[in-house]
């Protein structure tokens, strides 16, 4: 499985660390216990297209990868966080 890191180009998935589901928003730090419990312990196990966070160990970029969990086909990959815009620009 290749992940196209916007910094580094397509690289083997061995170089990346899976972080978690990118389709859910983390609760506020002081959100009720029930909300946090659901967020931390009730995980979805989606089949098919899924957006998820990965981190590239080499360049440290945190990435939102759209991956088909059935075929491992990667449809999209972008840098997330405050440096997303500058990084994408630098990669051009």
């Amino acid at each position: 499985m290749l992940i196209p890191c916007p910094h580094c180009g397509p690289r083997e998935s061995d170089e990346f660390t899976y972080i978690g589901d990118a389709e859910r928003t983390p609760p506020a730090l002081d959100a009720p216990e029930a909300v946090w419990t659901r967020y931390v312990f009730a995980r979805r196990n989606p089949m098919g297209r899924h957006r998820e966070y990965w981190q590239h160990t080499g360049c440290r970029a945190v990435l939102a990868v759209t991956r088909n969990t059935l075929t491992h086909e990667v449809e999209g990959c972008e840098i997330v966080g405050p440096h997303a815009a500058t990084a994408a620009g630098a990669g051009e």
Partner: protein
Amino acid sequence: MTGYRLATGGSGIDRTRRLGFTFAGRPYGGLAGDTLASALIANGVGVVGRSFKYHRPRGVTAAGPEEAGALVSLGEGGRHEPNAKAPMVPLVEGLVADGQNAWPSLGFDVGAINGLAGPLISAGFYYKTFIGGPRGTWTRLFEPVIRRAAGMGRAATTPDPDRYETMNATCDVLVIGAGPAGLMAATAALAAGARVILADERERPGGALLHDLSEVDGVPAPDFAAATAARLTDGGAVVLPRTTVYGHYDGRFGAVERVVDHPGDPHGLPRQRHWQIRARHVVLATGAIERPIVFPGNDRPGVMLADAARAYANRYGVAVGRRVAVFAAHDGAYRTVRDLAAAGIDVAAVVDARPAVPAAAASLAEAAGARLFAGHHVGATRGRKGLAGLTVAGADGGSIAVDALLVSGGYTPTLHLASQAGARPQWDDALAAFRPGPLPEGWTAAGAVTGRYATTDALETGAAAGEAAAAALGRTVAPLARPALAAADDAALTATAPAAPFHVAGKKAFVDLEHDVTSADIALAHDEGFQAVEHLKRYTTLGMATDQGKTSNVNGLAIMAEHLGAPIPTVGTTRFRPPYTPVALGALAGAETGAHVRPTRLTPMHDWHATHGAVFVATGAWLRPRAYLRPGEGVREAYIREAATVRTGVGIVDVSSLGKIEVAGPDAATLLDRVYANGFAKLPVGRARYGVMLREDGVVFDDGTTWRLGETRFLMTTTTANAAAVLSHLEVLLATAWPDLRVHVTSTTEQWAGMAVAGPLARTTLAATVAGIDFANEAFPFMAVREGAIGEVPVIVARLSFSGELAYEVYCGAHHGAAVWERIMAAGAVHEIAPYGVEALGTLRIEKGHVSGPELDGRTTLYDLGLERMASAKKAFVGSVLMRRPALRDPARKRFVGLVSLDGKPIRSGAHLVGPSGRSEGHVTSTTHSPALAGAEIALALLSGGPDRIGEELLATDPVRGNAVPVRVADPLFFDKDGSRMHV
């Protein structure tokens, strides 16, 4: 089977080069170009091994990786390799091989007694008889005995002395299989300018051409193959013979190249090279495997696949028997009749299951002088250790004396890689075989794997596939001239489809030779309801041996389908999983063994430690001094002395391995406030604070001190073990949860050298060598951070204490670490400063009841560790909600306590704490001998009820190491309870 070397013939051997080898302890001779299998047959060796379950004698049954009978062990000592398939072992001088599963010898085998009890050891036997028995009988009684009697060879017991390599490669076109189709595909793709890799599992490129007697482009087929491969190499293609593409993993292929794959010193070359290949286009030219026929007695040595016998005659110049018969169900097998007769072998009979045999085939039988039994089958075989004769069943049947029976029920396309890539095999009635289903994008199949078995078809479809691959990659393709084949009869013989798979009913009709699965086992699986293909496979172990059912799958499915009265595709086919053939673990590990598994990290002061008596201990990837031994000292004496020195004088310890993260930006304090359980927003510049961070679920994640170097700049330290995890934790939170925070986090672990100077004389030591810092207690209070210089080197000094003594941490640029260390050592010489290692570091922190790695085990909460007061009630932080779940504050949880040994004997880490209940109520996490406590043996522990049980007496028991120590539960803060020593 009484094989022998033919007087002439053998395109693949060199009759002038004789090789000596050993099999089952006896010396034999062979020829260059032989495989172990061909050499054994040439020497008349019929029994090569014993079967897995019944220990029935087994001989060579094939000439390729589908071999299910002749499994051998190779080499000795660390080079011992079990389960090698004799036809895949190239013969080399001095080869040492042995048969498997036979004790005491191949000829007389004690385990064959299982064969007498055969009817008892049927499918599901283990499950029914042993596993379901009284509790524990399986693991204690039956399993060890059965394992010793059965099993597939033995593993080596000493380390592998050979070297393995890893190679990553990319190409435009990967051609898998170098038979006629693969050779032409590679040639066509290369001609169009593509970057080509051609991989083939056999010793030489050529596939079926290597045992074909016809001529291609006016030269013998093997010569055509060699010349084509040479042209490919000259043209820049990467041609990899002896390379098995064994697996497809999400678009990447795994392949093993056997570089010097034979026993003995490889003279610096790797034994095997593991390739990971990515290709823009794939040409699957993997050919087909001949399908045996299931009939009673079909496992007797001497029963062999028909095309294998042809290969032994044509390529190796070996006759598999003196008088042979052929049992077939299609015309292709008559090539064996023709070629063996041409080699001078007596072909006595051809038994053909079809009532009407086409004239082209029948005439070959007649020309060979063989009696043709059309519409007959083989009903039985006989012979003691090898085949002596067979019974032809049918109208004109009878008994025939033969020493080899050559069988062919058709072909099975080698579609494993396509199946691994998700192309479901599809049953083709006309072919009577599974074909690869719709292939993934960028794949083309050519040759016999598509069900077109004629050589002319392979050459044509191969060239077309290569051209199509190049065209798909946007290359300009000039059509390649197709080679001319001068053997029209083969095309005719391979044009007619084989008969549908069938079997001859009766006893001891083996479907899976390697796992001893018979047609009766499949009938039993059917009767007991294990009818779905995955159930059939697991219940009978059909196809689960090292050959992965290459020859048995289709026959097994066909027999089940017959019982079900349903067509074969409704029984289904299992999805093939990698590897296609077994892969040595050494090849997968490559060079990453021992110390090469990961880099060893050394601190900037490592060389100093090494030259001053340090013995090292690996903490994560780091090597840290464990203790500095003086003459006559062991580690225990040294660490006790070092710890005492810190309590009475001054010591210095290397803390460079601690994780260090620079946290900078206007919102740096806000970030720290959110990730630490305690407050950081109000930490003044020039001060440090101990912090604890939690995971989202409220469990303690890591701890360390963080120093405020400026209004917007902090230096965070982490434990050595969690440095990378903490950095990632911060980066991910900043990217995903709080992208609005203006903070940068950067690892600076490698940039800083750090050392702690601790003890009552630490102040005078540092004051003598550090310029620009007033070390007076009021000017430089506890937890303050100051900047100064040692000589020319700028340093940051923080007044922190892990030991409970007056102590300072000195940080400087990593390249100055050794110089700064030596300056401090020089300044402390008058006080007899001593370096101390992680053992003494542990002693000092255990005496002070500080938690560390063994207590922060990913299960403990602040409550468990007695640190709940650290959690700020005024703010929310990561983990603040879930740490307060009621069950995490249950007093019965394992909580942090100290222990004191009551009999003066050392307490063991990992020991269980047992009270009157007789059950484990906790465990020991850290232990030490304590010089500060008059030599008491103390420990830290996690104990149910923890602090509520101070004063109780328990047993710290370690049954594995045979050790039990009576202990008293104590406050973990053993020494200097008011903490006055570090504030002086």
